[in-house]
């Protein structure tokens, strides 16, 4: 038997003990399902809430598309309402759906299970995190119903437009939006501290950092980014709230509305843009990094191969995270910045393509000659890969100042960011939900419905966003209620808008198939068993499915290997769980069997 070699030196430090009595044990229905401190229940609460508000945002996008495809056919879609729908759709999708579901949903469910912990390290704060998130969501939705309606300033909430009269929701709407964002950030901070500290402090024995599944690396780094970047949004929200309510002039310049000078002095709208994008660009990676991690695991499991270049993948996640803080001003090329700054930010933006491309190569090389299983999660993973590459390539266009300037504020930008940070991550969300649903419920989702869901979503998304690039190159502006009677826009653009709208509505409707599948399978799905995908990570090795509170029964698992022992030469099965000791493996008789204990 070979001696144990520590993979990180902290492993040899006298460890902390996780005491059973420290776990919260609910005794009532309310304690178990409502005010619950179990990370798995909190994850489900996050996921259901995020999907609910996401469906609302989906409906809003359908309404927007109806206006663009069939202008002035629906009386309730006024110009103001259109802008409000655009704003709410964007903000909900980016913050309240994607951020919440990746970190609050997947993070809560997977971190304790995958690192071999009983729960998050601060479960009470974790519970509060969800309830504050819910309050933020309710506040946001409430803004739809206040006098004046929700804000219509666009999801970037740029002042002075967001505050001055004439913009939809310039009164209560924007105030509720800002309060909601502040609440969201407070709630997220409580959850985020849990995610990071649990990964750092509560890994089970043998679970060294370099044995963590890439899902955990992605979530960990995204959470660190969020913890450091959300304060920028918080600061800008507080300052704008003060501008709107107390009349300060942080961002508000001296400005006249309808010929009347307002009381504001020489505030700086560009200052807001800096603060907003200091959060806004890392936000792209707050969404993308968990997706990168999850898709790595989906690909490895379904290709039955170890992930190619694990260490490179970890470093790429880290480097992408670091670089994401020095590219924010590429969103501001048209704000009148110094050309040298533009050059700097264009350079950093293009540099970030290197670690990102490295990840793409590694995913493709993992697929190469793999024993690929085309399960529904795998379809979504491949769908992500293709979509992310497409969206990333158009990012190269927009990262360059001379190309970005004419394309700025056109539909090209809308098509780019929807491909790269809407469709691509949502593919991973779906892939992840199909993958882990059996562990959460003990039942499989219906694969036929899943394949219908995938193919319609995938082809539909391309039907929406490919032609949208063309509209952008034609100069069709974004955020416009109507593009009729604009001389330079040809008739073909209107025809394309009709086609895009029809595709969008079909994609919207097919999401109901997914919701139906979720509900139906919960009651009538095939029993999943503990490890239906034959995966190696710890969440599939629990004694019970769904795992009980405390996750692992009386003893925590001990980890002997990384998360990617698939198709190991000489092994009987094509996967070896992380908690399988090397000397307990049934091995095939071969000449060079790496699983046999060394002499």
């Amino acid at each position: 038997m070979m001696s144990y070699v520590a993979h990180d030196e902290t492993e040899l430090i006298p460890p902390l003990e996780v005491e059973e009595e420290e776990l919260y044990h609910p005794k009532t229905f309310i304690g178990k399902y409502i005010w619950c401190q179990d990370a798995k229940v909190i994850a489900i609460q996050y996921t259901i809430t995020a999907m609910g508000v996401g469906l609302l945002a989906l409906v809003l996008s359908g309404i927007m598309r109806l206006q663009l495809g069939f202008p002035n056919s629906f009386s309730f879609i006024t110009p103001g309402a259109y802008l409000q729908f655009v704003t709410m759709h964007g903000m909900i999708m980016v913050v309240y759906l994607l951020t919440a579901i990746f970190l609050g949903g997947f993070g809560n469910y997977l971190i304790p299970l995958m690192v071999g912990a009983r729960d998050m390290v601060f479960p009470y704060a974790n519970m509060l995190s969800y309830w504050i998130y819910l309050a933020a969501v309710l506040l946001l939705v409430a803004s739809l119903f206040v006098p004046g309606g929700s804000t219509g300033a666009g999801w970037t909430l740029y002042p002075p437009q967001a505050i001055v009269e004439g913009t939809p929701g310039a009164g209560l709407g924007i105030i509720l939006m800002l309060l909601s964002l502040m609440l969201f950030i407070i709630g997220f901070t409580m959850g985020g501290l849990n995610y990071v500290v649990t990964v750092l402090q509560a890994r089970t024995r043998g679970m060294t950092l370099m044995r963590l599944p890439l899902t955990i690396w992605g979530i960990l780094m995204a959470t660190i980014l969020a913890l450091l970047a959300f304060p920028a949004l918080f600061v800008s929200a507080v300052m704008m709230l003060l501008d709107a309510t107390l009349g300060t002039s942080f961002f508000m310049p001296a400005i006249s509305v309808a010929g009347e000078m307002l009381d504001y002095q020489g505030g700086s709208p560009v200052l807001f843009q800096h603060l907003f994008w200091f959060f806004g660009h890392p936000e792209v990676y707050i969404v993308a990094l968990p997706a990168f991690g999850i898709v790595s695991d989906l690909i490895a499991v379904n290709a039955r191969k170890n992930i190619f270049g694990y260490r490179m993948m970890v470093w790429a996640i880290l480097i992408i995270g670091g670089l994401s803080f020095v590219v924010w001003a590429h969103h501001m090329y048209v704000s009148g910045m110094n050309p040298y700054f533009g050059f700097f930010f264009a350079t950093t933006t293009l540099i970030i393509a290197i670690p990102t491309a490295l990840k793409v190569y590694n995913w493709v090389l993992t697929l190469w000659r793999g024993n690929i299983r085309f399960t529904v999660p795998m379809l979504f993973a491949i769908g992500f890969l293709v979509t992310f590459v497409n969206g990333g390539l158009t990012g190269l266009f927009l990262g360059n100042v001379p190309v970005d300037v004419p394309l700025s504020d056109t539909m090209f930008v809308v098509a780019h960011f929807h491909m790269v940070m809407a469709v691509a991550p949502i593919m991973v969300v779906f892939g992840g939900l199909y993958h882990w649903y059996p562990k959460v419920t003990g039942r499989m989702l219906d694969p036929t419905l899943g394949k219908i869901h995938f193919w319609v979503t995938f082809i539909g998304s391309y039907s929406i966003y490919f032609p949208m690039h063309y509209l952008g190159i034609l100069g069709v502006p974004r955020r416009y209620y109507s593009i009729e009677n604009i001389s330079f826009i040809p008739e073909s653009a209107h025809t394309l808008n009709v086609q895009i709208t029809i595709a969008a509505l079909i994609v919207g409707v097919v999401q109901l198939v997914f919701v139906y599948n979720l509900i139906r399978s919960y009651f009538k799905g095939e029993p999943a068993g503990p490890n239906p995908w034959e995966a190696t990570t710890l969440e599939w090795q629990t004694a019970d499915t769904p795992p009980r509170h405390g996750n692992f029964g009386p003893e925590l698992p001990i980890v002997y290997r990384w998360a990617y022992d698939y198709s190991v030469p000489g092994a009987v099965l094509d996967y070896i769980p992380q908690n399988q000791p090397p000397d307990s493996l049934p091995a095939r008789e071969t000449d060079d069997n790496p699983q046999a204990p060394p002499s």
Partner: protein
Amino acid sequence: MTAALVFLAAIMATIIWWLARQTINVRPWEASTIASTGDPGSEVGNRPRVAGSLGFPTLKVGLGLFLCVATSLFGLLMSAYFMRSMLPDWNRLSVPDLMWLNTALLLASCVVVHRTDTAMKKGARREVKLGLLVGAILTLLFLAGQLFAWNQLNTAGNTVEANAANAFFYLFTAAHGVHLLGGLWVWARATAGAWFNLERVRLGMRIELCKVYWDYLFIIWLVLFFTLLSG
């Protein structure tokens, strides 16, 4: 944004340095047996041990991370302050002299919490109770002093909307005060623990967390205060 960027660069450099130590010469694909303590399943006190930790108490790691978040917040506030102060309508605010006294009060509360921590380590419970009480009073006096300073400025016509420099003064002091109030919640729990004979290790941890947090908030206050003075 320089202040925020410097802070973030420091954070990212720390993470990269730390991670480099974890990853160099590591072959994650190699399986291992755990034999350093004899038996892979060895337990202590019949409870499984957790190997993956930084070697610090979890609460301290949590506080450390929270302080990073708070530093990001204050760093961004400072960045906004410097950028806004370069615009032509900026009128420097004359900071009330009372702020010096307030600063002294906060410093005194820091000294007291240090002495309380020392007393805790010596097991002198009576001194611990006294220290917690005095420290809380000094902190509350600091907060009251800040409110008085607000009142002085307001009375003198330096209202929040009158100029951006005023607005930043109110914003800085409010942000700092809110953080201090949050700390007082933990302080109150420590005080209750001292009175109701909470076990020594847990009480000691609460006091130690308060010590770190008060030190941090004092340093942040100094930075904010001198920024306002020099503004």
